[in-house]
């Protein structure tokens, strides 16, 4: 008998598949979760970003064309060279990046990387990403400064779930790379980003 058969032979249940599906669905009805008022999505999201466990800085723009200026603003405020790792996303590559040095492969000691989140989650202040040819994953973990454009907000984590076939990776970023592994003391920038900067784009662009 294979290991697979040996294990599965001991794990039989008594319920029919449809009864299992019904029970699984019932377990998701009205989940307990922090309440988020739909009328206060923006405020709640901004509040969560300010939590010590998230500690993201926050900027607001009205249009995609303002993205390069928001990046320059951030670099200037933080004394960074205006050098940026940019994903090959047409929404970004189409912009006027005058005065910003761009590259699209992250260096091992990358200073700053920009990315577009699919959405932000007001419940937790999480930023939701999926991988695709236009959205590599590694730069978002290598860079010291993680800059993220957030075009839309949802209330709860459940609202961020992608139905159907999943991308290679789907990930939620809720703060920076931190550790409390030495004497329980919190240190930012353990392996990945030490700084998270959210650029809230209030008017989503149609692709």
């Amino acid at each position, binding site marked *: 008998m294979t*290991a697979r058969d040996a294990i599965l032979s001991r794990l039989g249940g008594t319920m029919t598949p449809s009864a299992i599906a019904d029970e699984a669905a019932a377990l998701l009805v009205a989940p307990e979760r922090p309440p988020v008022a739909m009328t206060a999505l923006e405020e709640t999201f901004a509040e969560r970003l300010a939590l010590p466990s998230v500690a993201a800085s926050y900027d607001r723009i009205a249009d995609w064309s303002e993205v390069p200026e928001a990046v320059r603003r951030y670099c200037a405020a933080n004394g960074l060279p205006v050098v940026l790792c940019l994903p090959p996303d047409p929404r970004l590559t189409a912009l006027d990046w005058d005065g910003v040095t761009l590259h699209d492969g992250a260096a091992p000691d990358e200073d700053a990387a920009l990315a577009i989140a699919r959405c932000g989650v007001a419940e937790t202040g999480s930023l939701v990403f999926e991988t695709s040819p236009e959205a590599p994953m590694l730069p978002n973990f290598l860079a010291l400064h993680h800059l993220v454009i957030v075009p839309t907000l949802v209330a709860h984590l459940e609202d961020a779930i992608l139905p159907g076939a999943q991308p290679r990776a789907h990930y939620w970023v809720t703060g920076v790379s931190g550790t409390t592994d030495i004497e329980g003391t919190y240190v930012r920038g353990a*392996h990945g980003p030490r700084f998270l900067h959210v650029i809230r784009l209030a008017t989503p662009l149609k692709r």
Partner: protein
Amino acid sequence: MSGGFAERVDAALADPILKLAVERTAGTAEAKRTLAIDAFADFEAARDRAAAIKDHVIANLGGYLERFEANAVAAGAVVHWARTSQEACDIVIGLCKAAGAKSVARSKSMLGEEIGLPHALAEAGITRVETDLAEHIIQLSGERPSHIIWPAMHKTREQVSVLFKANHRDPHTEETIAAMAESARRHLREGMLAADVGICGANFLIADTGAVCTVTNEGNAELSLVPPRMQIVTAGIEKIVPSMGHAVHMLRMLARSATGAPLTQYTTFYTGPKRPGDRDGPEEMHIVLVDNGRTAMREDGLAEMLRCIRCGACMNHCVVFRQIGGHAYGGTYPGPMGAVLTPAIDGLAANRDLPNACTLNGKCQEVCPVRIPLPTLLRGWREKSWREGLEPKATRAGIGLWAWAARRPRLYRTATATALTALRLLGRTGWLSNVPLAGGWTRHRDLPKPAAESFMAQYKKGQRQ
């Protein structure tokens, strides 16, 4: 640490630095959890739901595993099955060798520790880069984890500093924790980016998508798993949840119970290997589903233990763990959950002391996000140990009396009330410095004075209100 349980406890109790180090981290974790749960209005109902989700999965585990396998395979992953830790290690080492791997980056996984993967990799001559900061520290010191969330909680900053200076290429020059973390960042980044294989565990396996979920504060899982050309996941078969919606509920419970955050910083769901056109990600993804005693636990009255989501709350709140730390337990898993799991995984005969390292104060059960009745399961092990004649004669006589009295509730209550009164008389300042027959404990530590009434008495009062 070697020797029997009693020797390990003695050594731990005599170590003043250990107590301080454990107290610092566990104390902080306890405080943060309390804040997080006070801010979550329906936490008690959420615990019921979390327990029900896990019970539902455990009852239908076979079907869910098959569904997970089918979906993972459809996404391009290869699924392997292992009955034992040996089978699991053989599969992982075989994959590494087939890939010609010289080095692997490993993202902290308790299952990896449980199956002895670090040892197996060393034997195969494969360089292991532990990427979680705490795992890196204990790799350098040649120790085992002492906590499931903070594996190096027993180490002080001074000890870490010495280790880093002796091992890092470009170590810190300033004696601060931030500078030490920075030193590790420089040192580990190279190893992560150069690894041939990335190995991780799974916090959850999502049945209806075939995705594997990892959760880290450091982002080390992603840095370990995205660059190498092969990703290997080793996961216990109980890690299944039906869907992403169920995973969300469990993630809310896990983060709050472990670190007090609303959600852990990096939560990633991996579904199969790199897709056409993707710029990063592994060419191959392998998932090893490991039993190692879990089907037997399900059959032998320990199904509730399979609810465990490895949050560490039970040990942070355990008076015994806070005194002796994790190493004294001798197994992969310390604290109350370890005292239940270790005999199931490594056998009762060698671990019959563990279920006794418990005051049955019930604190672990009170904080467990999936309501595992840890004291009851521990009592089950005590009884089994007694039935199988593993207890020494003196203990057998004592437990025999206890069992006889416990089956006669009124007599039992009278007897415990008497004992409580006696203990209270001995306690002057709230801590007992000398208790007859408990010298092994009170030689180094004071026992907390018992509550004025037994739990049963308090419970009954509460019920009447």
